[in-house]
């Protein structure tokens, strides 16, 4: 259970993550808006409460790790890391600029706090398995959190990694599936229907939960759950573009190019919400 203070803190953090991501998009003029916004709440709970990390020592070996296999959601993670103090907030605005440390897709060699290089969909899953298993071999008491897209789950590699995670009991790895029901060309139901994701993960040998992935309370409960022998997979039922009404209402909201005016409108909405929280 979240205390009401903690919940408010995380609500604010989630809004700040959205603001940070939108500021980065605004500086560049375009970006992967929908898939960044849909995971802002999960990131708020992870970086705001669950994960042990040290901004002063991003490579601290015993830290909890995050692998965002849908690497195009980088801007949301960069915002969370900036707010945690991994690097100056203003740096977010160098997204995709020449020589930047903040590319569209997550890059462990470039960005302090980014634990894995992703962008070729599917590949982050196996890398996360290796990372978590490596921590176990090294005797580290930490967890790895893996975020996978629903469109991304079309990739066979995702299911090879899932099979391995359960078969080899890699239970210090938590799978989070961002089931926002959309991919690049449209709705997953029309392109490659992923059906009952919870049943799929259960069949693969996971303890699978299905929650509202934009609900902080449900996220907190799922992410504080201790895994037994079976690794945990959390199906996050989310909305692509969550938190900015105009983006939620746009069917094709994967990669968006907007004018400064539009971004400013989104930002003032988000800032008003933040202010209302006190």
């Amino acid at each position: 259970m979240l205390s009401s203070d903690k919940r408010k803190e995380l609500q604010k953090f989630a809004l700040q993550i959205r603001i940070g991501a939108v500021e980065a998009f605004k500086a560049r003029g375009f970006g992967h808006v929908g898939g960044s916004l849909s995971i802002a709440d999960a990131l708020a709970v992870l970086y705001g409460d669950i994960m042990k990390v040290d901004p002063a020592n991003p490579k601290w070996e015993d830290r909890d790790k995050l692998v965002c296999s849908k690497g195009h959601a980088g801007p949301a993670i960069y915002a969370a890391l900036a707010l945690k103090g991994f690097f100056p907030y203003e740096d977010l605005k160098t997204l995709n600029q020449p020589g930047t440390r903040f590319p569209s897709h997550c890059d462990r060699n470039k960005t302090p706090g980014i634990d894995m290089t992703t962008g070729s969909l599917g590949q982050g899953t196996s890398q996360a398995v290796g990372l978590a298993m490596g921590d176990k071999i090294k005797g580290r008491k930490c967890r790895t959190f893996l975020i996978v897209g629903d469109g991304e789950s079309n990739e066979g590699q995702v299911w090879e990694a899932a099979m391995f995670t359960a078969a080899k009991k890699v239970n210090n790895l938590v799978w989070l599936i961002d089931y926002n029901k959309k991919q690049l060309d449209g709705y997953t139901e029309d392109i490659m229907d992923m059906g009952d994701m919870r049943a799929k993960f259960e069949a693969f040998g996971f303890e699978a939960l299905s929650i509202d992935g934009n609900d902080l309370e449900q996220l907190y409960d799922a992410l504080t759950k201790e895994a037994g022998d079976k690794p945990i997979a959390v199906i996050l039922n989310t909305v692509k573009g969550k938190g900015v009404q105009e983006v939620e209402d746009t069917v094709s909201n994967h990669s968006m190019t907007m004018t400064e005016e539009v971004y400013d409108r989104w930002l003032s909405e988000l800032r008003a919400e933040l202010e209302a929280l006190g």
Partner: protein
Amino acid sequence: MKIVYNGENDGAFKDTLGATIAGLLEADKDVVYLDADLMSCIGTAKCVKSHPDRAINCGIAEANMAGIAAGLSAAGLKPIMHTFGPFASRRCYDQIFLSGGYAGNSVTVIGTDPGVCAAFNGGTHMPFEDMALYRAIPGAYVFDVTDTVVLEDILTQCKDIPGIKYIRVGRKSYKKMYEKGSTFTVGKGITVKEEGKDCAIIACGLMVAKAVEAAEILAKDGIRVTVIDMFTVKPLDEELVLKAASETGALVTAENHNKIGGLYSAVSELLAGKAPTPIEYVAIEDEFGEVGPQDYLEQRFDLTAEHIVRKVKAAIARKK
């Protein structure tokens, strides 16, 4: 064949891809078009409505798509598959190699956003090695497209050529090069500029227009070069390369690709065996890609007319 280069931008490849694929589906009932969740990037989403049985979105599963394409070929159909270059090459290589090439199936593969054209998608999406991979498939064809006119004609030809065909092409535009409606011959390069015999620049794709620009700069210094468009990287136009080598005695290749395995390799392999000639290259220096605007990346990786100029001078200096 009329060259209409005047430094202006051509239309967007994306529009030509959308129109040509739709046209092929309409004209030939054996054509099946497969994509991996990137239809909206090349304007082909409409094909799912017009030809629901033969325009198929396979989802984000490129290796599976390549295998399905091979199976469709075995069933007597003519599969054309598209995704971004790295996923059309690295991601499904073994499926293309074995289920496709080795098994004797025929697949046309379109890989978009070659090299620095991947720009804001960054290093994970920036194929500098796709031509190397496809060149290494026995009997495969590799085309690095110059403009929309080449694209339309070559893609149309590919559907009926047996074997594995790889077309690497941008989504945005390059410079206009050929008169609309021109036709091209597989295995035959095109001399797009014949100024003189000091050196020959053999270029492909994005770099052809830059080679022409370099030739214009060099002409001001009294250096007369010939520019060849080698859009057909495999099969290479060996006759044309050997002719250029013997006439000029100094060559420069230019490609939006790693120096390993692409056009420079193809030309060098030929020359080493048949006519050793001083040769310089403009290509990626065995590096990974990175994110940024395309014009920044062109500077960053030395894919510029100015760099071609430097290399031409270096090649000429090596002549005996």
